[in-house]
């Protein structure tokens, strides 16, 4: 109905009975050059990101082993198994992944901001400190995992020796489900705080100096300047880094896998580890695809929320 009405509108006559003046034909819109510029990137995105995602979602409705050409359509069975409690470790992995995000991201932000604020001042040797803090971010995951594996080694590890030196008994940090995930959190925080520091340092350079000068003239202390000027001005960067942190937390795999393999007793299982185990250890790519789809949904929800937050942060600074 609506379509017909709008289609008839141009043929209506004017009140005076004269035929309506032909409206000028709208100019043919030329394709935006912007889209042409991004077309190659979009093509790459379509082939290497969009297609795998679509194929993964499709695969999640099948049961297959990745070797045999036979694929059985199972409808929502993989999702029923995953969400319906038949897989005892899925919800544990979801909880751990969310815990990982909730714990590591704020710690990385806080440490990154703290280091940046400290190293922005007139500190002797700050270039060296910056390099030292940033170094873990450029090391490979395997190197980091092996290095920390030695730190936490229950026999000879540095952490174990320190505890023994202060009179404690040697602790199997990675053997105890109560401590293993916190040890892994610590490694993650250590690794990325330096990277966050670098971003914050760059953002601090962009804050107008006159704000600090005015505040100093008004008698604001160092701490008040940090709290009232630096932190609010860094809000957009904080949201951006939160986004990076959340994405990094959802992608976390190598370090935890090498350190603990998701153990002991699934204490450090993350969704990414579950996906790997199901696809490659258990030869159930269909079920792994269902978990990957769940991770995609989780990531998309977080991305939307953070997008809104970013708009708010940008507005609040302007």
């Amino acid at each position, binding site marked *: 109905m609506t379509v017909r009405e709008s289609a008839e509108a141009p043929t209506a006559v004017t009140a005076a009975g004269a035929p309506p003046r032909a409206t000028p034909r709208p100019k043919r819109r030329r394709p935006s050059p912007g889209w042409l510029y991004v077309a190659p990137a979009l093509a790459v995105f379509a082939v290497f*990101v969009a297609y795998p995602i679509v194929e993964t979602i499709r695969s999640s409705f099948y049961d297959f082993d990745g070797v045999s050409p036979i694929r059985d359509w199972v409808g929502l069975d993989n999702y029923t198994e995953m969400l319906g409690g038949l897989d005892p470790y899925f919800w544990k992995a979801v909880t751990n992944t969310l815990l990982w995000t909730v714990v590591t991201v704020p710690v990385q932000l806080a440490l990154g901001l703290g280091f940046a604020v400290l190293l922005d001042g007139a500190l002797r040797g700050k270039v060296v400190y910056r390099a030292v803090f940033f170094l873990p971010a450029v090391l490979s995951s395997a190197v980091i995992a092996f290095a920390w594996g030695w730190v*936490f080694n229950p026999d000879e590890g540095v952490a174990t020796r320190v505890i023994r030196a202060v009179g404690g008994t040697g602790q199997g940090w990675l053997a105890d489900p109560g401590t293993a995930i916190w040890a892994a959190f610590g490694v993650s925080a250590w690794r990325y705080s330096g990277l966050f520091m670098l971003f914050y340092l760059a953002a601090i350079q962009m804050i107008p100096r006159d704000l600090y000068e005015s505040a100093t003239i008004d008698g604001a202390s160092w701490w008040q300047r940090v709290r009232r000027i630096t932190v609010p001005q860094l809000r957009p960067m904080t949201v951006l880094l939160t986004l990076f942190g959340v994405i990094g937390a959802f992608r976390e795999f190598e370090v935890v896998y090498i350190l603990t393999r998701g153990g002991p007793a699934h204490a450090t299982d993350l969704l990414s580890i579950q996906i790997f*185990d199901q696809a490659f250890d258990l030869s159930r790519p269909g079920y792994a695809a269902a978990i990957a789809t769940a991770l995609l949904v989780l990531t998309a929800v977080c991305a939307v929320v953070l997008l809104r937050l970013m708009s708010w942060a940008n507005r609040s600074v302007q």
Partner: protein
Amino acid sequence: MGTQKPQTRGIDSQGLITRRTVLRASILGAGAITAAPLLAACGSDSGNDTGNSPRTAPSLVKPSGTVTLTLWTWAWPEEPLATELKNAFEQAVPEVKLEVKKFPFPDYETGLRTAVPNGTSGDVLHLQTGSMIRQYTQFLSPLEDLAKQAYGADWETQFLDGSVKEIRDSVAKGDPLVAMPQQSSIGGVLWVNRAVLAKAGGTVPTSHEHFVEISKELRSQNLVAATWGAKDNWPNTDYLVQFASQFKPGIIAAAEAGEASFTDDAVVAGLNYLKRTLTDQLWNAAPFATPAFPDAYDLFFNGKAATAAIGTWGTAALFATPNRLTDWAACLWPKLPDAPQDDWMGQSVSGIPQASSPSAVRPWRTVNVATAMRGDLTPDKQWAAWKFIEWSCGEAGQKAGSATYTPARKGIRPDGLNAEWQKIYDWHNELGKGAERREFAFIETRKAIESAIAAVCVNNADPKAELQRVDAAAKRARA
């Protein structure tokens, strides 16, 4: 008032994409990229929606010239033995040039998964028994008739007891034999470092209580009674298979086949005993944070542990340093408390001065390397592939390889053993008659058991409840 150009959503008045659109696209892209690598791994499959391709019987044609044969393996020796073994084969079969592609085991598993169905793997493959052979059966060539022709009608008895059966059990009922036993091991035998053990009395453990005493004494000297790398999981199922068998031989294999339940009292008792070994501190500190290789076994190799569960698969380690042949010996895990008397060993004695306790724990056996050939090879390649298998599993190949691995053929010992270790080596193979099957037919069952062991040992979970999950996983796998 100027006219305003109608704007397309996300395009500004100059026809450029707005910052907001770029930002939105970036964030959504970032979200997608987060998941994409994880997704891509499980979304791709090489197959289509068709059924299995038919497997044809091998038709061997001797090549007129030289054929290049590719072997894919994770179990090929290091240099210089690698070249020596290759040369030995090429001398025996001059029509074939052998190319060996060796992988680390995890990469090998991943590589096979895509290469075998696509026909891009090696012509000859080394496989593990159990789930690995089962997975690729449809792509492999039947070998039974060729084995009969090459080795005679009694060919099966020429290999260590249970070796061929283990391969037969790896495939579904009715499927042909698709691999030959090349390396076979008896494992789960405690190898002993006499010097370390001497610091706690020098006698091998003859009961659990004795083992605990030895451990206490050694711990006071910063040494370890036994090593366990539970982080790697595979030693955990090995121990459970052994311990459960003391209460009911063959119970784990029966439960996997659906002929018994994993909640059987024998399995529960075995699992409870495994947990007790932790409580009683028989092991190195924090086994569940310790990988088997290198950490746990290094404790033994470096003289910091009195015992380690090894077996013939570790024979090469004997030759790593000259004094090991005299320093090391072997025994069995002593009888478990509350386990029934079971004189399965008969008159077999341990290779060390003191006999193991009566009713000691059974070891396990495995064909750790089976050799197979792809089913889609050209006739001349099939000939070459079979010649390699025939040689590798025949007497000449087994002898040539015995410097680095444990032959699956009876009567062939690794070179370089002293008189005592020759006796110990033969004793291992004698024990094979009473050994438990180590491998699982389905990886799902193995993973479920690994989870159950960790949950009970680390989280104090209820063994029965955990083993019910194993039952469910095994049932799903069989289905």
